[in-house]
Structures are given as structure tokens and as C-alpha cells.
């Protein structure tokens, strides 16, 4: 064992430690900062760019190298590169600053994109741009939660944005065909779910084309299926009711 003196002590401020517990022992490897996530996602293919040194430690900050016996006992091999790869893939690590920043940025953008895709300006029936949504999210001080899915968060954002700007989920256009005898009764039940009734045709069966909030789709589907015992049908005419084509302002 080498003598541990301040002169040969290496400060490990710039080291990202990946650790893994296996076989009752703790194993650590010393990596460069901001590199491990890239490796995991496959963007970085050069192992030497990730690892500071190919040796495996018990404790990186103390400089204790893992013993060969422990390694082969825990991993079943003494090939250090192989072990390093295993630890990199499965070990736990502290996400470094840039990695976290880019993660947050990506999910922030992703949320904004989802919101922009799902919503329209109710006045013009046209979507908002992602940029605008991003700015609006900033205005309402929305912070991204890293442990929730972006889609979930996007729905939350839409709810919050409604207070500060004219925004609405793009309506779905549905066609409902209901048998005559259930028609009236069912219509009353469906009414609160329907936003805009576009056409209504009542001869031998009730046929309606309407705009609904996409959130109500499942509810409606269930309602119709249960109430009419499968006789009624529900058809999606368009997922998003938006204006198409360019419009010249005049």
C-alpha cells in the first residue's frame, strides 16, 4: 500500500463517481463529468473518453483500489474493461450539472412541443408556436419535474396556461350514431361532454357530428358502449380540429 501524503493526493473535484454494490461490496469507478449519461444513451462510444482510469475502486475519494479477488468473486471475471462497462451501465451516479441542465431543457422543450401540438388559439383555431408556449411557461414560472412524464406535465401546463392566455385543447371531431330509442336519453347524458354540435340528423337513428375535448373521448366511448349495448357507434373524424393552410391577413 502506498503512503498517502498530501503531495500525491489528487483532488477529485472533477470526477464523476459511478458506484455499484455487488456481492456485499461497494465498487466505484472514476469517470469524467458530464460523460456518463452520453455513454448510457449511446452517443459516446469511446470508453477512454468516459473513464479517467480503467481501475476499479472500493472508494474513489480515498484512492482504494478494489481487490482482484473481490472483483472476480462479484463479477465473475477479472477483465477490468468489462467490469467497468457493467458498472457504467448499471451503477448509480450523481447527475452532473450540464447533464441535468440539458435533461431539464429537453423535457421543457418536449412539454412545450406537446402543448403546442395539442392546443389551439380558440379565436383563430390555429396552433400556437412552441416558442410562444415556452415563453408562456416561463411567465407562469413552471418548473419541470424530472420524475413525471412529459405528457403528464404537458396536461398540467395546459390547465395552468388557461388562466394567463387564450388557449384551449384542440377539439376532436367525432361522429356518433345512436339507435333511435336510446337517442334522446343518451343525448342528454352526452350533452355536458360535447363542446360544439356541428350537425344533428334524426331519422331512423340519431347521427351527430360534434366537437369534444379529447379528454372526454374515453368517457364518451364507455358511455355509448354501455348504454346502447354496443348498438351505438363512435367514430373519430379528425383528431385535431385546426385551420389548415396559410391565411393572408387582410
Amino acid at each position: 500500500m502506498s503512503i498517502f501524503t498530501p503531495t500525491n493526493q489528487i483532488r477529485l473535484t472533477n470526477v464523476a463517481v459511478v458506484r455499484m454494490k455487488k456481492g456485499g461490496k461497494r465498487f466505484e469507478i472514476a469517470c469524467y463529468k458530464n460523460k456518463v449519461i452520453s455513454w448510457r444513451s449511446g452517443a459516446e462510444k469511446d470508453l477512454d473518453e468516459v473513464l479517467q482510469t480503467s481501475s476499479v475502486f472500493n472508494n474513489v475519494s480515498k484512492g482504494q483500489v478494489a481487490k482482484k479477488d473481490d472483483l472476480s468473486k462479484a463479477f465473475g471475471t477479472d477483465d477490468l474493461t468489462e467490469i467497468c462497462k457493467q458498472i457504467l451501465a448499471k451503477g448509480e451516479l450523481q447527475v452532473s450539472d450540464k447533464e441535468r441542465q440539458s435533461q431539464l431543457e429537453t423535457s421543457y422543450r418536449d412539454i412545450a412541443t406537446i402543448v403546442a401540438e395539442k392546443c389551439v388559439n380558440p379565436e383563430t383555431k390555429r396552433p400556437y408556436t412552441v416558442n410562444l408556449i415556452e415563453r408562456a411557461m416561463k411567465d407562469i414560472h413552471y418548473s419541470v419535474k424530472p420524475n413525471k412524464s412529459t405528457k403528464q406535465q404537458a396536461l398540467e401546463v395546459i390547465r395552468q396556461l388557461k388562466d394567463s392566455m387564450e388557449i384551449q385543447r384542440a377539439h376532436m371531431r367525432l361522429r356518433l350514431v345512436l339507435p333511435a330509442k336510446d337517442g334522446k336519453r343518451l343525448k342528454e347524458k352526452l350533452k355536458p361532454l360535447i363542446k360544439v354540435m356541428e350537425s344533428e340528423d334524426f331519422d331512423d337513428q340519431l347521427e351527430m357530428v360534434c366537437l369534444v375535448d379529447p379528454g372526454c373521448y374515453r368517457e364518451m366511448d364507455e358511455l355509448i358502449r354501455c348504454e346502447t349495448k354496443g348498438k351505438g357507434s363512435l367514430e373519430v373524424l379528425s383528431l385535431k380540429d385546426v385551420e389548415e393552410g396559410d391565411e393572408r391577413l387582410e
Partner: protein
Amino acid sequence: MGHTTLDKIKALQKNPANIRNLCILAHVDHGKTTLADCLVASNGIISSRLAGKLRYLDSREDEQIRGITMKSSAISLHYASGKTDYLINLIDSPGHVDFSSEVSTAVRLCDGAIIMVDAVEGVCPQTQAVLRQAWLENIRPVLVINKMDRLIMELKFTSQEAYTHLQKILEQVNAVTGSLFTSKVLEERADKEKEKDKEKEKEKEDIDPMGCSGSEQVYDWSAGLEDSDDSQLYFSPDQGNVVFASATDGWGFSIQQFANIYSQKMGIRGEVLRKTLWGDFYLHAKAKKIMKGTKGKKPLFVQLVLDNIWSLYDAVVTRRDQDKVEKMMLSLGVKVMARDSRHSDPKVLLSAICGQWLPVSQAVLSMVCEKLPSPLDMTSERIEKLMSVGARRFDSLPTQTQELKTAFMQCSCEDTAPVIVFVSKMITVDAKSLPQNKQRPLTQEEITQRRELARQRHAERQATSQQTAPAHISLSLCIPHSLQMQALTVAAKPEDEGKQIFVAFARVYSGVVRRGQRVFVLGPKYNPAQGLRVLPEGSTSMTGSLPPVPHLACCTLDSLYLLMGRELEDLEEVPPGNVLGIGGLEECVLKSATLSTSPALPPFIPLNFEATPIVRVAIEPKHPSEMPKLVRGMRLLNQADPCAEVLIQETGEHVLVTAGEVHLQRCLDDLRERFAKIKISVSKPIIPFRETVVKPPKVDMVNEDLGKQQKVAVIHQVKESDTLHLDPSGLVTLTTPNRQATVGVRAVPLPEEVPLLLEGSADLIRTLEQAGQAQRDGRFLDMSPRTHDALLGLKSKLEGLLQGRKWRNAVDRIWAFGPRRHGPNILLNSVEGYQRPSVWHCLERDKGEKDGDNAIRDFDNSIVSGFQLATLSGPMCEEPLMGVCFSVERWEMNFPIQRTHLDSVGDEDSNSHDQRRHEDIGAGVVDCYGPFSGQLIAAVKEACRHAFQAKPQRLMAAMYTCEIMATAEVLGRVYGVLGKREGRVLQEEMKEGTDMFIIKAVLPVAESFGFADEIRKRTSGLASPQLVFSHWEVIGSDPFWVPTTEEEYLHFGEKADSANQALKYMNAVRRRKGLYVEEKIVEHGEKQRTLGKNK
């Protein structure tokens, strides 16, 4: 000269013979506004000491700050020459290339133009452009050579050098005019050669004598270049259409003035002097004769004109010789105020002397009055041109319309004459500055009245202080009244505050316009023949209700204004031949319009703009809640600016298209400060892409033959799982999570022309889709025979394009189009044993619906939905697909229990059968994976995406075609800019009869931001591109390419980090959308900032 009163101008307006409508045109910074200042000063509107510094007509703040004019503005001036009084309607125009649309609006309203040229810089690109514009509008130009002082003070020319320099400039200007003339003649001849038809030839000759009446600018149509007379076109001082001036120093002269001076002094006839003062003549001192041919002797112009000016400058500015100046002033008969002569800046003294000796306004205005035509002299050629919209010839117009021509010519102000007004643009004015809202100086009576009131009040107050009780009543009577008054004025104010009022910038061509008059507003597409047919005979705009005619509207002229630069004056009526402002038209006039009381008038030909809007930016409000304000503001901007275009794109972006960067800046300022009054942010517009697949390439990146390697498939190895299988030929099979359905999909590239055809006939396909939908419900959608035929045509065209073994019967097997059911991608039914009616089914009405396998027919819709979703956003960067055919080759469903149950029910009643099955499946499917139809949609979507990825993927970029006009000397630079921006030149040809080249190129939209500006800068404005969206083009490089072969490693290195354009585009889009980008956060782990111990 004193201030001209409004009444005087009103009186002058009534005499069209003494009206001159003219505009000042020149290259940027050649002194248009300064000259305008001098002319304005001559009317006493501004002080002559401030002329040239104030820039009175630049009323906008940014115009004053930047020092360039950005809009055309008009002012009416009075000029007395001898005993005749003239009314000059002067329009100052901007010189910057971005605002050439403003020049067009100015030129249209004028009969003549002052072309200005800088004596140092000579003819510049915009000089050429404005000469061309004046030429196209058939208005007569006169020339002012400005900034003569720069020749003396800056270049230190001797008078002789200056003379030769001036000669050169004149030659340049005349060369431009000449080339315009020759190109016109050549064009005409070329036209004629094309028109072999002899009858038409005759017609032309018939028009000819008519056109000759009283105009100098008429050319013999049938004659060639050598026969056409062009001597009247050219500028020459001895013709009296050139003035030499220095607008900043306030002097200017024409040859005539000097001729008059010297004819008295030297006793030579003025006529002779006028002819000889410019040109190759000299004064033989002994013989006192003017001789031709100056060999080493001073030309007359130098000796008599320039030398005097040179010596004046020398004495006043250079040497500051007080005695000599005194002497000169004495001989010139000029008296200067003491404070001017003692001023420390010699320029002040100089302009004081020159202003009296050779006032520029005098020289310019007298030339204008003599040389430019009055509204009465409008050439019939110009009238015909104005009235013949499009390719229509004048003589094909209805006779009533042709009769209107005489109204034009007479310009009569009788009540019977039809009113003809052309609005060339809408200008915005602050509501505050309208005459009716303006504070007027109080008249004498009003002042005395107020004084009286105040005195009374004072007396009352004194009285109350003395004896409170009796005065109390009078006070209570008095105070509420004044309070009320105050309240009223206060309430009225905020309403007007900052409101923008539109005033139409217009000219009366015939008839008298009166306030409150009702007129027709003719849209650009209005057809007089149609209007005359529909409207009852003899109906005028005064009659109340009229049958609706397309592009014809009726409106009332609320108010008429005299345009006085920054100010407006109220008018009751405007006689013909005048420029005016009309209020209350913002509802019916967008940018320009023709107004008339006669429905027979055709709308005037649209203004021809030199620059088309090309700089595109996306605009967003800083605060998202202010969106409606932005939209309103953009609407107003569109109306107020002749050249700007605004539109909302499908992506929801608000796009502003302007003519150039400076124009853009002005539009944004306008939006921020006048129209929207909100903070906005400006960004590059979003660039759309499309995703597609291509046939596997035959050669690799270093042009080596690939042989039979399946390189692509190796790279895009899809992770196989238990539900997903990929076979090497690209067939992807996917099973739904509940294992009830399996689909197999293969992606095939469509031949190049197919997506084009499909894009082009999107509307047709939509009708087809609707018809199919209707038929499925058992109804028939009535289709007109025309669309029916068109659809059959589309089908046969598709059959023609999809040929070969691979595509056998493909057209009949088309299942759907996507995305959005009418896009350029195809879903193909290649499932064996699955019969379903094709999309064309609804075309054949006779056949009844043959149901195939009903069990899976029900879920047909899910497959289509899945396909629609997959084509709407591709796997590369979630952009729509294009030109991809997904062929479904396997589709199996197994419902273990329900199926048998169903069979036992039998199919006596297919309707109840269906319902039962629905119910059963519905019940059975309430499993952990959600409804079955949803699972199937997801499965199909995933299968399509994987099938897409199994093929070589490519991005498609939107391309602009770009037409560039450039002169020969800047051709190289144009190519440079094009090359830098990945443009590709398609063809290059020389324009007949000119030295302009026309280059056609394609340019990716992604590279077009700032393109127009760059090309203008690099070619100093000599080339101007026009961009039009043309098509989608596959980008050759593979975004996922990595070097694999030996040669590729050699050539590109292991990382292949040389620019891969497709990858760059793809990553940019992915980053914008917040998708995962395969990029390292830091490139080199070791090269990061090392944090210190204490940090």
C-alpha cells in the same frame, strides 16, 4: 415669399392648366428631401435658414434618426412665375431600395418627376431603377444635378475638370434612358415578330395616329430602332431640362438663367446664348463672337458660369476674404444681414449670398413649370395603359369605358364629368393631428369673449368675498357649467389618444370630388363589362340600392384633406388634377383602389413594384396574452404599407414579409409603436421538412460500388422483441400487447412523380374520401360529373406512374392516403385473402358492397388511423412523411373465445351480428391494455415507423426557386452567394436588349434566411432575387450515415464529423422540438473547466 394661405391654394386647385404634380426621385442620399426642404422654404412654411437641415417631409421619428426617407409624402406649394400662379403638388419619395414600393405609389400619382443625381457619385443603382419606374409609368422626367458644392470643396476640381465631369454624368444618365428606350423598341419588335397575325398589325397602326395627339413620347410602333425618334428623351442643359444645384447651400441654376443675365450684360441674344452656353463653344474675346470647337480654350459654360461660382466659393469659404466678398456682393446686387456676414461658419454667409443670387427653388420650380406637363396634357398612351388591366387591350374594352378616356383628357371640373380617383396607398395619421381635432389659434372675437368671461368671473369672485350671500346663486349657476365643460373635454381625450386614422393618398383624374359624395370602389379584379351588364342603365353611385357586382363596392367620402407634409387641411371639394387625402375609406380600401362614380371605369393597372417582398420573419408577442393585439396590429400594418405582407401559417406562426432589412425594421417599429403597441419578438420562421425513404443506394459515399451489401439494414438494426420481428427484406411484423392481432408492414418508396401528383390533387382526394365515407353509411354523395371525371383521370394517371411488376394492381389496392387522409403517402392493401373495396370504390355506383371478412373489416378504421398517425410524424424528426407507400402484407386476428361464440349465432341478420360482436369484443377487451381498437392503432403506427426505419431514410427539404436579375459585373458574386448557401443554378440567360442576366436557381428554404439581404449587399444592390416556393427535394446525404468501408474511413476519418447537411437539419429540428438528440454534452471529457479546491 410669405406664407401661402389655404384659400389661395384652393383657388389654384381649380385651374388644372397651372397644376404640376411631380415627385422627386433619386438614389438614396442624393438630396431629395433637402431639395424638398428648399422648395418648402420658398413658400415660407419653414425658415430658409433651416432648409436642408430640418428635413420637413421626414415626419417620422426613425426617419429623422436614421437620416433616410421611408415613405412618400406630399405637400402643395405655390409658385408665381411672372403673372401666372402655379400650384405644385410635390411628392418626396424615399431612395432606399427597400422602399421602392413607396416610389411606385408616388410615381403613379404624378405627371412628371425630378430625377436627382449626385454630382460626385453619378448614376447609382437606384437612379437606374427610378428612371425605369418613371419610364414605365410614362411620366416625363427633368434632371437636377445636385451637390455641386462637393465638386468644389471635396474633390477640389477646377472649373474645367468639373465641366468634363458633369458632361460624363449627363452621358451616363442619358445612356440609361437610351437603353430603356432601345429595350422598349426591341421588345416591341420582338413582340411583333411573334405576332405574325397581320390583322393585329393593322390594328396597331390604326391606334397610332390617335396616340400621336399632342404627345412627344410617342413612337412609331411599326418602325424599328433607327426610325424611332428619341431626341426628346435625353437630358441636355440647352433643352432646359437640367438644373445644376447644391441644395444644402441653397443654390441652383439652369442655363436659361445665366443666358438671361449675360444677354443683358454682353449684348448677345438670349436665344443664341441658351443654345451655346452648354457644349463645345467658346467666346472669341476679340471678335466678341461665339465660336464652335474649343481646342484648349475654355468652354463658354466654364467661363461664364462655373468660374463665377468657383470664385465665390474661393472668396467666401476657402480664403474668407472679406473685401472681395463685399465687392462680389455688390456686383451681384445681394444684401446680406450683418449677423450672417459675421457668422463664424462661412457656410452661413455662403448660403445667404447664394440663396439670393441663385435660389434653388426658383431654378427648379421654373423648370418644372415649363418642362413638365400639366394634368391636362396627359398622354393618351398613358391613359390607355392605366386602363387596360392585364393583357387586355384598350380597344377591347366596352365603348362606354372608352368614352371615359375623353374625361381623362379634358380633366374637366364640371359637375357632369365622371369622378375618377386613384388611391395609391393608405397612410396612417394620428387622430390628434387631423384638422377637426386640432387646436386652432383663437380668432380675435373668441379671445375678447374669453377675456370678458374671465373678467366677469373675477368680478363675481370679488363680489362674493365682499358679500357672500347674494352672489352665492350666481356662482352655483356658473361653476357647474364650466365643470361640465371640463369633464366633457377630458372624456373625449383618451378615446382619441394614439388612435390611428387611415387617410387614402390619392389623386383626382377627372370630375370634382366633394365631401360626402358616394362613389364606387373598384377592386383590382372588377370587370367593367360585367358591371355594366348587371347594373341598370345610367345608374350611378348616388342611387341607393344596387344589385351586387363582384369586386364593386360603394362608399362615402367622409372627409377630404389637403396634404401639407406633416399636416392635413380640411377641404370641401377637390377639382381634377390634384393630389389629396381621403378619410373614411379604411373599411373598403385595402392598399390601393380606383374610385369612380361611373361603373364603366375599369380599375387601374396595379402598381408595378420594383422590389417584391422577400425577407420573411416570424413575429410573436412577448406576452402570449397579447396575441389578439398583435393580429390587429398586423392587419393595420398590412393596410398601411404598400409592400408588406402578413400571413398566418399553418404552424400558427405570424409571418411578416418585407422588401428588405430596413423596411423590416420600419415595419417592426410601426408594429411596436403605432399599430399593436406591444412588445414583440422576431425570429427566424420555422422551416418545414418532410421525411421519406429511398431505394438502397448503389454506391457509397466515395462512389465505390456497394455490391450486394445491405448496409442500411445493418445500421438501423431494430431491437427485436417478442412482439416485433424484422426480416431482412424490410417486412416488419408487430403483435398487439394482448396478442390478438398481428400486422406485417413494409415501406416502399413511391416513384418521384407520385407524391407531386397526390399533393396537387389533394382537394380531389378529399372529395373522394368524403364520398367513400358517405357510401359506407349507405348514402350517396352527389358528385358533379366534372369531379367524377377528374377522379377517374387521377386514377389513370396514378396507374400510368405506378408501373412494373412491383406495382401490379397497386392502384386498385390503395387503402388510404395520408396524412390527414389526403396526403402524399399511400397505404396499400396487400393482405392475402382480404377483400376490401378500394378508395375508388365510390366511383362505381352500380356495385353493391361486398363485405369481405367481416371479423376484421370492423377494425379497418383502426389500421387507417394508425397509418394516418404514422405518416403525420415520422421517426426522424417528427415531420410529416412524403412519398412513402406502406404496404400491409399480413393481418391476422385471433379472438379465441368470441369467435366460436359468434359463429354459432349465425348470420341471419348481419346488423345484429355486428352489434353482438362489438359488444363481445368490447367486453372481452376491457383488459389492462385499454380498448382493443386503440391497441391496434398503436400497433399499426409502430409497425409503420419500424418499417420506415428499416429502409434508407432521407430528409426532404423545401426548395425555393429563385430568379435573380443581375448585371454582368456582379454575376460572379451572385454565384458565390448561391454556392455558399447550397443553391444550385438551373439556367442563366441574357435578357434581350439589355446587359442584365437572368439566373434561375433553386435554394433550400432552410438557407434562405438573410439570403436576399446578403446578395444585395454583396452586389451593391445590382442583383435582386425573388424567391418562390417550388417543390420538395430529397437531400442526398443520409442523416444516419457513418463510414463503414475502408475507403470511407480513409476519406472521412473514423468519426466522420465533416458536415453532414441532413444530420444538421435533423438535429436542429429535433432540438427545437425537445426530442432526444444524439449528441455528446461535452466533446472531450478531459478538456472541461477544472474546478478549484475551494469551489
